[in-house]
């Protein structure tokens, strides 16, 4: 056994520089577009706030079925949702920025979901994860809500039954893009208020 072990050690030492080169490839978020000069950097407040918010979203996981299990995998070390600034789940809607609805919503539960949405402070985003939350999925029946967009506005839909963790991460990336590019005035606009009013909110 000993000679084989020694060969292995020699081999790994030979490859070491390449190994460390790969692991040191760290991504850093680009600065938003702006004017840069010696000792200063100027950009708009919206862009700075959007940049900060998008990398510090606190999600509220509203998990009712198998999509929730996929989300647990997404939170785990292998997919590591925390890389995107969402390490801290908010199990209270008061502190949450993003409502992630994962699973079948029965009609009896729809007032509960709506109340959770109403308890969230603006700005708030909603992600419908999986076929059931998006459209009712296979449950085309009298007792199941045919998509949560019947009761609350949805920003991003993630397809799949259930979606893999990669799909949930991709949907989260889409939410981050929305957050980054949102105007600071959007939530006060008439269009936004009309949209909420169409759901019977405020």
């Amino acid at each position, binding site marked *: 056994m000993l000679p084989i072990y020694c060969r292995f050690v020699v081999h790994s030492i030979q490859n070491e520089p390449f190994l460390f080169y790969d692991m040191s490839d760290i991504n850093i978020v680009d600065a938003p577009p702006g004017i840069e000069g010696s000792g200063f950097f100027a950009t708009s407040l919206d862009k700075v706030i959007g940049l900060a918010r998008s990398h510090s979203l606190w999600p509220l996981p509203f998990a009712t079925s198998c999509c929730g299990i996929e989300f647990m995998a997404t939170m785990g070390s292998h997919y590591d949702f925390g890389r995107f600034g969402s390490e801290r789940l908010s199990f209270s809607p008061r502190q949450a920025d993003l409502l992630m609805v994962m699973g079948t919503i029965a*009609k*009896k539960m729809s007032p509960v979901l709506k109340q959770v949405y109403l308890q969230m402070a603006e700005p708030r985003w909603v992600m419908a994860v999986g076929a059931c939350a998006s*459209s009712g999925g296979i449950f085309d029946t*009298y*007792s199941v809500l045919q998509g949560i967009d019947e009761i609350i506005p949805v920003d991003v839909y993630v397809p799949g039954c259930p979606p893999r963790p990669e799909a949930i991460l991709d949907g989260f990336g889409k939410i981050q893009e929305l957050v980054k590019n949102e105007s600071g005035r959007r939530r006060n606009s008439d269009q936004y208020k009309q949209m909420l009013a169409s759901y019977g909110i405020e």
Partner: protein
Amino acid sequence: MAEITNSDVIQLLNERFGNKVAGLNEPYGLLTIETTKDVIIDVLRFLKEGANTGFSFLTDITAVHYPERNHIAVVYHLHNMAAKIRIRVKVFLHELTPNIPTATVLWNGANWMERETYDFFGVKFEGHPDLRRILNMDELNVHPMLKQYPLEDPNRVDKKDEYFGR
């Protein structure tokens, strides 16, 4: 407890109730009888508390809608755990007057089963202490397992044939 077979139970029921118990049948070995709502509580009490029957466990209460015959059948499943035999008791009601006495006088566990049967089939259990919906949302104004109501939700928009090339 001594061994009890289906034929023993049939004999006991015939002695006690005569022609008020009918439709004796044993599909797949499960003893099945039909009776009327006038004597259903007496039949259930006899099966539960009778000296040689001992069906002390109420497994389930449910119903079946037969629209072509204008019937709603209320179905009771009982279990004699000591003798390891089961019995199924059916009562046929007219679908416009689905009223039947409550079995909560015999089993407290019948409470939720009867609420569920009321929720889905609209069967009214007379004397039930709290007969209201248990599973469906309170605003639902139909009893959805009755066959005149569609199974599908009318708000569904993504099941049009054109999306599937039909």
